[in-house]
């Protein structure tokens, strides 16, 4: 299918505007826009321009090395990759059920990461747009500008992230790229001193998270004309949900809904994810385009992440976050909210939930236990799925009889949102750029739409030898003189 504005029918003589790099996102990407003489938009694409190759170069490595190696995909949410890989390898080593200490240590690590990643995104990357306006003075539209104008908000952003990083440090050994999870369990429990140190701060972390929800709710509801429609598109959505349909970032079964909220599939064991999800490659991006097999390429694409999760679950297990979820659902009016800027609101609800779960866990003595690892009958294949800050993350490995990895497939959260992000920026381009003189402020609107998804572009590209490649030779008038393609 050719999506509207994905490919211009006649690219010759069109003017090319590039946003390169897209700023205040994780990783490197660019947006290209093709405009005609009247500034009418003919093509908009989000390109992922970096290339990683992890799926290939972990082949031939011993499986127990993988959770530590693959987390290097990312410096922002390495814990997600660390844990998704560990969960896949739990299956390989036959660890059907982890010990209570291991499961809760991993959960604590993961919720610490959710807290720090969401805080980083909201306060550091997006608050300049939300507090100052999308086309405000570019010299102040950054975290330094926020620190000058709203010092308390900026300070809380820094301290919320710091707390999340501390949770990661005591569970994984380091704030970034630790080693806490191993196949079948964890390599350490919490010490009483570590627990008590975190307990000192967790109560005001919960309160600050509540305040952050209030802040974004106020920003959103004060300007519904903008926030409910900016970059809007309708799509399916997916996440894992825990027991009883609870919001759960660490473990559960796959659930997908259509744009009206009707269930497409539910209670799906993620070991069988590839019976439900397929990935398409397109010549102009290193990032693949996943879709639900049952609906096909044209209608099966979907979104993931906070906006999907908060609307996909039945309820949230912690009281403050559940209250905020209900407020959000009420505001949405009984049907799914699809506005990309609502990602921010739901992201803060999730941050609050993460803080509340951390508080609960810190009062659980299982974290201080000594029973760390289990194993069982060795398997040759395993899938691990986790809800990373940016959405559902799949790690799938096959291991030979000598313990070496023979196959790896990763579907990274941002990859799941590939089509969704492209749709959002095309909507913004049509609404704001079409027929107008292009300015920095207008181009920032495109970036605002991308940032709403909190994409991690460095995570999202890793397949080697699978990308089709298209090279075009273009003359000074923009006419394609020659093209080569590899599919």
């Amino acid at each position, binding site marked *: 299918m050719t999506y509207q504005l994905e490919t211009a029918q006649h690219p010759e003589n069109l003017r090319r505007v590039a946003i390169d790099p897209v700023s205040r996102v994780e990783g490197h990407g660019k947006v290209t826009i093709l405009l005609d003489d009247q500034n009418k938009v003919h093509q908009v694409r989000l390109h992922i321009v970096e290339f990683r190759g992890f799926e290939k170069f972990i082949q031939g490595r*011993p499986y*127990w090395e993988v959770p*530590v190696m693959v987390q290097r995909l990312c410096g922002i949410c390495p814990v997600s990759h660390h844990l998704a890989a560990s969960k896949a390898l739990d299956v390989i080593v036959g660890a059907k059920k982890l010990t209570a200490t291991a499961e809760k240590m991993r959960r604590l690590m993961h919720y610490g990461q959710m807290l720090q990643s969401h805080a980083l995104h909201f306060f550091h990357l997006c608050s300049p747009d939300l507090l100052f306006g999308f086309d405000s003075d570019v010299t102040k539209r950054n975290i330094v500008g926020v620190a000058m104008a709203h010092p308390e908000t900026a300070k809380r952003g820094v301290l919320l992230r710091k707390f999340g990083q501390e949770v990661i440090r005591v569970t994984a050994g380091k704030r970034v790229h630790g*080693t806490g999870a191993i*196949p079948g369990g964890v*390599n*350490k429990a919490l010490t009483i001193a570590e627990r008590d140190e975190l307990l000192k701060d967790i109560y005001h972390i919960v309160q600050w998270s509540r305040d952050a929800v209030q802040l974004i709710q106020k920003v959103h509801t004060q300007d519904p004309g903008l926030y409910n429609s900016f970059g809007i598109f309708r799509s399916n959505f997916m996440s894992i949900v825990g027991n009883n349909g609870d919001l759960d970032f660490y473990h559960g079964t796959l659930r997908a809904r259509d744009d009206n909220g009707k269930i497409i599939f539910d209670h799906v064991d993620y070991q069988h994810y590839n019976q439900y999800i397929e990935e398409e490659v397109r010549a102009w991006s290193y990032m693949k385009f996943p879709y639900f097999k049952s609906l096909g390429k044209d209608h099966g694409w979907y979104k993931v992440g906070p906006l999907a999760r908060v609307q996909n679950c039945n309820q949230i297990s912690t009281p403050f976050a559940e209250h905020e979820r209900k407020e959000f659902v009420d505001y949405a009016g009984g049907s799914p909210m699809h506005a990309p800027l609502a990602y921010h609101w739901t992201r803060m609800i999730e941050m609050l939930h993460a803080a509340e779960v951390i508080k609960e866990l810190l009062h659980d003595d299982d974290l201080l236990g000594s029973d760390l690892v289990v194993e069982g009958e060795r398997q040759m294949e395993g899938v691990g799925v986790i809800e990373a800050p940016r959405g559902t993350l799949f790690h799938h490995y096959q291991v030979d009889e*000598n*313990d070496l990895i023979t196959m790896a497939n990763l579907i990274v959260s941002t990859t799941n949102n590939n089509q969704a992000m492209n749709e959002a920026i095309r909507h913004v381009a049509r609404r704001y750029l079409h027929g107008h003189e292009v300015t920095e402020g207008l181009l920032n609107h495109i970036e605002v739409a991308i940032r709403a998804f909190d994409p991690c572009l460095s995570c999202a590209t890793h397949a080697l030898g699978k990308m089709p490649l298209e090279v075009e030779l273009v003359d000074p008038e923009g006419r394609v003189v020659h093209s080569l393609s590899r599919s």
Partner: protein
Amino acid sequence: MSHTFTLDGKVIPFTEGQTIIQAASAAGVFIPHLCYHPEFKAHGSCKLCTVKVNGRHTASCTMRAAPGMVVESETEEINAERRALTQMLFVEGNHFCPSCEKSGNCQLQATAYHLGMMSPHYDHFFPNRAVDASHPEVLLDFNRCILCSLCVRASRDVDGKNVFGLSGRGIKTHLIVNAKSGQLADTDFSLADKAAQVCPVGVILKKRRGFAVPIGERKYDQAPISQTADTTEGR
């Protein structure tokens, strides 16, 4: 009769037949080294233990101590040379500390820290070396081999098995497994062998142990190599 020499101005006693590094170690003074191990005959190949004796370079693991020697070790000049040797070892193999399970327990890494190595400095060779995972209990990752030959000596001199050898010459020197297939599974190697315990880097690894020791509890998390290289090497 007691003999002494000076090492960086400190008086070091020694007994007849002791090498400089043996005497220094007995006196609690650290001299960086990789191929030297107190339980094996000195090999003198890595040159990390090079010192200056009366103004001339020599390997302290092979040079016998003599009365009145003036030995220099922790000088800027010698440490710069040791650092360059270490950097060459890093670029000659594939040493990816971030994902190596030996990280924190690795003598090469600890030595690099000791010498203040901030980068590999030289262009990487990125050699294409296979992993031998054929043995049920032990993995061989040749990517990290620094050709110290400790496994060769341990297998031959202690285990009496001759499982390992160095083959090739010069830059093409490489570690081999003494079996027709070249695979460890086709030897009588055992996890209990001395050769399984002596690798200073991450070549000979007990399978499925991985990252079981948390960060903070690994050998060189506790103290730098200059304080932990005791007479048994602590491996």
